[in-house]
């Protein structure tokens, strides 16, 4: 029973990721998991906040009638109202429950919005390096991904973005704090982006910013995430509670549609419909009830910040060229040799697992996910040094 031709092709494209993953697994078996430094996965070891665990028990024990039944495809009204209130406060805009749609994580939310927006051949701008799944999300719904490189410091290159805008441009995906670089876009550069898109709006073309805010609470040293709703009218944000509340396996997040979008109601209706026909139906019931009251909470960010500091110092000490991340839990150093895949294999020989930059559309770099035990990060210090030493002969 042959599988879809398209899927076969896409899977072949990404087969090297699997190969690397399998090599890593082999190493773990050979040397023991404790002797392998695995920075390859964005699956945080952090547990959900204690208050959230207690609330979950309370909900289950409350035994409310019908609590596991279907609800409206957009989610529970009271939960959406709680989230709308949070947005009224943070964005200062008249959000109501109707602007919020509960989704199966942000991956589900982005798919729902793209299906609702894209006609065949419509283009979506993605800033490179990027989370590769964005490509699949866009292609699922007949769209075309237009990649635009960011600057050396991974910030927005407004000129380049301007140069790829076309009549077919329907949206731009903005992911900040950013995977894989940990960069947080500044208010100034987002305003420049808004100005660029507003020029198009004057000519009658509506381009949406789809903001993937999966890491929005993971910010360091007092960094403030600019509020895109205040900066640009046609904004849709996608939130996940995978990272801030450490619930990735439970698949819970939401879409927030700006009250400033003209005819936003039709987009919201389409998103509710798409949520249904893509097979999500609704976000998991029990998790919806749980997250409504936790909009202002998060796991311990200082814990992540400490890990970031140690990771960054190890890399700098070993001589890597790296941009210090202000958010998320990734760091994206330059590979000391141009061939990042080769370098990542060298790291593997030294028991360090990472992902090559080519996996994010930017060869010559590699990604480390430091959402792991602090102790493991500390212990990896001499290994990074050794890797760099080992390359000296080659250069």
């Amino acid at each position: 029973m042959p599988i879809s031709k398209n899927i076969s092709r896409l899977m072949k494209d990404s087969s090297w990721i699997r190969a690397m993953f399998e090599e890593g697994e082999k190493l773990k078996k050979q040397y023991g998991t404790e002797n392998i430094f695995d920075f390859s996965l964005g699956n945080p070891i952090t547990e959900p906040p204690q208050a959230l665990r207690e609330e979950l028990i309370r909900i289950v024990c409350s035994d409310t009638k019908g609590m596991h039944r279907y609800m409206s495809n957009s989610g529970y009204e009271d939960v959406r109202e709680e989230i709308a209130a949070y947005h009224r406060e943070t964005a200062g805009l008249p959000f109501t429950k109707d602007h919020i749609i509960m989704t199966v994580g942000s991956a589900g939310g982005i798919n729902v919005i793209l299906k609702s927006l894209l006609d065949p051949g419509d283009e979506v701008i993605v800033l490179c390096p990027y989370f590769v799944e964005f490509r699949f999300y866009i292609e699922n719904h007949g769209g075309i991904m237009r990649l635009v490189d960011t600057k050396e410091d991974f910030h927005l290159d407004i000129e380049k973005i301007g140069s790829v805008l076309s009549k077919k441009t329907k949206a731009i995906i903005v992911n900040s704090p950013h995977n894989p670089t940990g960069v947080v876009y500044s208010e100034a550069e987002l305003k420049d982006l808004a100005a660029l898109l507003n020029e198009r709006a004057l000519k009658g073309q509506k381009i949406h910013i789809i903001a993937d805010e999966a890491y929005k609470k993971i910010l360091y040293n007092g960094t403030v995430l600019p509020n895109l709703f205040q900066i640009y009218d046609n904004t849709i944000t996608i939130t996940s509670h995978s990272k801030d509340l450490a619930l990735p396996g439970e698949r819970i997040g939401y879409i927030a549609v700006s009250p400033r979008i003209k005819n936003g109601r039709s987009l919201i209706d389409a998103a509710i419909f798409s949520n249904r026909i893509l097979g999500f139906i609704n976000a998991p019931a029990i998790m919806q009830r749980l997250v409504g009251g936790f909009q202002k909470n998060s796991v311990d960010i200082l814990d992540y910040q400490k890990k970031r500091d140690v990771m960054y110092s190890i890399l700098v000490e070993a001589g890597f060229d790296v941009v210090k991340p202000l958010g998320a839990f990734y760091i994206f150093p330059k590979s000391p040799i141009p061939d990042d895949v080769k370098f990542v294999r060298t790291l593997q020989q030294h028991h360090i697992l990472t992902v090559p930059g080519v996996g994010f559309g930017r060869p010559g770099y590699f990604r480390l996910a430091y959402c792991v035990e602090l102790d493991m990060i500390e212990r990896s210090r001499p290994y990074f040094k050794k890797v760099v030493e080992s390359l000296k002969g080659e250069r």
Partner: protein
Amino acid sequence: MIVAKKVMKQMEETGWIRRMFEEGIAMKKTYGDENVYDFSLGNPDIEPPDTLRQALIDALEHPVPGMHRYMPNNGYEEVRESVASYLREIHKVNFTPNHVYMSAGSAGGLNILLKSILSKGDEVIVPRPYFMEFKYYIESHGGVIKLVDTQDNFQLDMDKIEEAITKKTKAILLNSPNNPTGTIYSEETLRELASLLYRERKTGKKICIVSDDAYKKLVYGDVPLPNIFQIYDLVIAVTSHSKDLAIPGERVGYIAISPSIEESDSLISALMFSSRALGFVNAPALFQRIVARFQNSSVNIDEYREKRDVMYNTLIDAGFECVKPTGAFYLFPKSPVPDELQFVRTLQNEEHILVVPGRGFGKEGYFRVAYCVPMKKIVGAIEGFKRIGKKYY
């Protein structure tokens, strides 16, 4: 216009369902919930088994580290093993954890499966009347739906299926027990279908049966549910725990891949890819662990059977023509007038009884009654059905 044209068109197609739904809500507001008899929704009013609720509390009071984290896209291995063990027992086929893929309900399971198997333009045969969402699921992934009418008793019409098969046919999508008819396809029917598909195999057509098993535990015992895995080789069944454990809002189910499918490894890789690409990523973690312990459980079938009997007898006594359902919680009687939309409106306006017109399932001239409601609602509607029966018969 902001919204994608395809979505706009699909929404318009279903717009009348929404209007009826809204009229129903308005009616409840005007006359009070207790005076409206709503048989329009397949959202059961029953609660999960008490033991399930206790298992949830236990799981949360004794947390396992990492219990809310990502796991492999196909689900926890121990959960898949407990599903496989259940499948081995009921199907007498050698399922392993690698033949089980945990999904976000059967809607989620069908979508990732269709995305994994359909190339652009591939055809999927669906017997009609049918659950209309199937059309959107198929179209979302570049497929083409081929509707084939069933016989008058809602059993498969083999000649019509044979006529519909082309080089592009990739699958036939069966739903048994069926929504909206409550029919179970008989073993004999399925064997005929299997031999038809094996004959087609000889001409190079590899057609699989995708079985939507959402109602597989809601079987009333009049007719047993045939063991499809013993009847045909290329079978992929998609199951939901929405109905049997009454947890539809939690979105958990699984895909069972027949061990007879040789390329099952590549199919699983494709499913993993599709569930990431479509944004499901994995079935919700907490409820995976829960359902693993309830594979042999089910809500009380006797209660449903009793509701079916009262509802069926009510309709027959009132003069309606109706095939007696042997599973699920739906009845699909013939409308007394050809224009069932008009009849449904009359029923709504005169008797405050809400049902869904057959065209919502691709079959005009019929209407669907969902009896997954409290018994007192069914009993309360008896007189109304009688009066409307007198009017037409």
